[in-house]
């Protein structure tokens, strides 16, 4: 990133009529002048770019140099777990035996694939302490919806779907959305002074009309809900389910298990905790694990093994049905499996330990320079705010933009909403001490600059490929297509 190159024009702007990147050989059939003539030749695309092979190659290579990625540096987006994606995962998932499997191949020909899916299921059950699992959902929020649909189906089977879902104000934004899509009305639980759920509030709101509590643990402040077992008891005492958003499992894996905390349903993000590509590099994958009581409602197909033969079972009358075509993100599942097997049980535990250590190393180094609204101990992430810098008119946006000048990706901004001007930092375990120090030194320098030269921050970034973008204008009047 940040290599100073001439601003690359749009590919449409470097087009010149008649140029091509590929030349078809002269046809050796008499009378046939142009092999593309007829239906194959499109004439109705106005302004289609015409460039040479050199130009097209340089164009996309130059653009790629302006990108930022986990292969380049720290990506400290809180609650996103943007860890390094080991190359061995990609190698395994690109073996032709996997990439060339036809999705409609008969079970007898894909026993190896099914066996690996079952193995991943079993490993995830061991890590979570849950009793049954589906690999089907294609992302975290998809997993939430699948989990909520199962909760609804179970309540319906008991005669009453119920009306409400409780969600703390520190939850991931997708939680209320998933509950709402499932037909539930969301009731918010306010965080207490320690940034955790108040048991009194929960007990007051919990009744026979509440279908579930959706809880992220550790929550988006990075704080572990240490009352989790009492929380579960309160929810269960009124017949509700405890849903745990497993987005922050990187703090817990190998150390403690949601199943032992009486969680009923949870999703995992393979693209967070289990090192498969994230964001634009995805696709994501959000397996959902449940307890025995919810097992009949799992989406189909369910992988079953009998006498060493793996079978996809679609005959499950109480299932919520299909949630995705075919079998989920198979190749992503393989990458996660490769990761888990590479690390092994001790490695998984160490992963969580170092993730927590790295986050606390950053926290301790920046405490005092940046405000910490909640001082409870944190695990894999910590949430600072721009409170001290606001005295100089500098906001979290300015701090983030300035980080770009230091060649670093900024943390998550303005979330969770309970911290005004939030900077939510999650380094993950894959950062070395040296990379953590680079980030810390940049943040320290920025804190100094905020005091001494706030204008420098308010006009940042200065050395990037493009300067500060007008995000308000972009949101109000987006231009999504090139026009002449």
């Amino acid at each position: 990133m940040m290599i100073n190159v001439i601003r690359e024009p749009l590919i449409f702007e470097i087009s010149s009529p008649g140029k091509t990147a590929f030349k078809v050989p002269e046809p050796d059939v008499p009378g046939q002048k142009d092999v593309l003539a007829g239906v194959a030749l499109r004439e109705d695309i106005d302004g289609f770019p015409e460039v040479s092979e050199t130009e097209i190659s340089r164009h996309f290579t130059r653009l790629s140099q302006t990108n930022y990625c986990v292969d380049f540096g720290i990506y400290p987006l809180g609650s996103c777990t943007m860890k390094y994606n080991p190359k061995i995962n990609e190698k395994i998932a690109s073996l032709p035996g996997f990439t060339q499997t036809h999705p409609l191949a008969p079970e007898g020909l894909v026993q190896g694939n099914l066996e690996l899916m079952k193995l991943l299921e079993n490993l995830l059950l061991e890590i979570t302490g849950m009793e049954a699992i589906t690999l089907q959902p294609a992302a975290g929020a998809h997993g939430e919806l699948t989990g909520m649909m199962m909760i609804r189906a179970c309540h319906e089977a008991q005669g009453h779907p119920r009306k409400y879902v409780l969600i703390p104000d520190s939850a991931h934004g997708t939680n209320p959305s998933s509950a709402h899509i499932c037909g539930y009305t969301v009731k918010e639980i306010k965080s207490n002074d320690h940034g955790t759920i108040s048991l009194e509030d929960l007990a007051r709101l919990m009744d026979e009309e509440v279908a579930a509590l959706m809880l992220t643990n550790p929550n988006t402040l990075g704080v572990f809900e240490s009352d989790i077992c009492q929380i579960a008891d309160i929810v269960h005492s009124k017949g509700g389910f405890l849903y745990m958003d497993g987005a922050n499992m990187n703090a817990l894996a190998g150390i403690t298990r949601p199943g032992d905390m009486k969680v009923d349903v949870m999703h995992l993000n393979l693209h967070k905790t289990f090192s498969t590509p994230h964001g634009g590099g995805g696709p994501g994958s959000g397996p959902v694990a449940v307890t025995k009581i919810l097992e009949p409602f799992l989406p189909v197909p369910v992988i079953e093994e009998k006498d060493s033969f793996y079978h996809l079972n679609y005959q499950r009358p109480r299932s919520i049905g299909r949630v995705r075509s075919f079998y989920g993100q198979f190749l992503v599942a393989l990458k996660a499996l490769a990761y888990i097997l590479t690390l092994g049980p001790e490695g998984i535990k160490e992963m969580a330990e170092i993730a927590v250590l790295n986050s606390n190393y950053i926290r301790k180094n920046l405490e005092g320079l940046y405000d910490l609204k909640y001082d409870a101990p944190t695990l894999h992430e910590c949430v600072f705010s721009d409170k001290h810098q606001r005295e100089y008119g500098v906001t979290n946006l300015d701090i983030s933009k300035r980080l770009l000048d230091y060649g670093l990706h900024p943390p998550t901004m303005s979330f969770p909403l309970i911290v005004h001007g939030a900077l939510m930092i999650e380094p993950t375990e894959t950062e070395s001490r040296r990379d953590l120090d680079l980030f810390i030194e940049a943040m320290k320098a920025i804190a100094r600059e905020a005091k001494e030269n706030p204008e420098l921050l308010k006009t940042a970034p200065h050395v990037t490929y493009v300067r500060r973008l007008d995000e308000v204008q972009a949101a109000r009047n987006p231009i999504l297509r090139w026009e002449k």
Partner: protein
Amino acid sequence: MYPENLYYSQDHEWLKVEGEEAILGITDFAQKQLGDIIYVDLPDSGKAVEAHQTLATVESVKSVSDIYSPVTGEVVQVNQDLAQTPELINSDPHGQGWILRLKLKDKSELNNLMKAADYEKYLEGLEK
């Protein structure tokens, strides 16, 4: 800072009572917290709401936030100007940036809301 003639909620909505109706908007504090507003999802006229129910949604570059009705009532009019110029909420939150007009069901509910001086004190508590 905060007009004396308005009622304020803990969720940072304001109400201006005119007879049996009230105009609703969000406070200057709320618009500052949200940042530049880019879209407002308004309800239809005639929509009935209970106190603390979601009335509208405001989207800024930072987040999407619900606006709650501080009182029970029925929507009688919405600010159509916000469709084209949602930034009115930023530039004039207590005036031209009004969001909608409600027909009040029970005026005694207004007693649950704060007056300007109390709201300012409430904000001081939040800033700490």
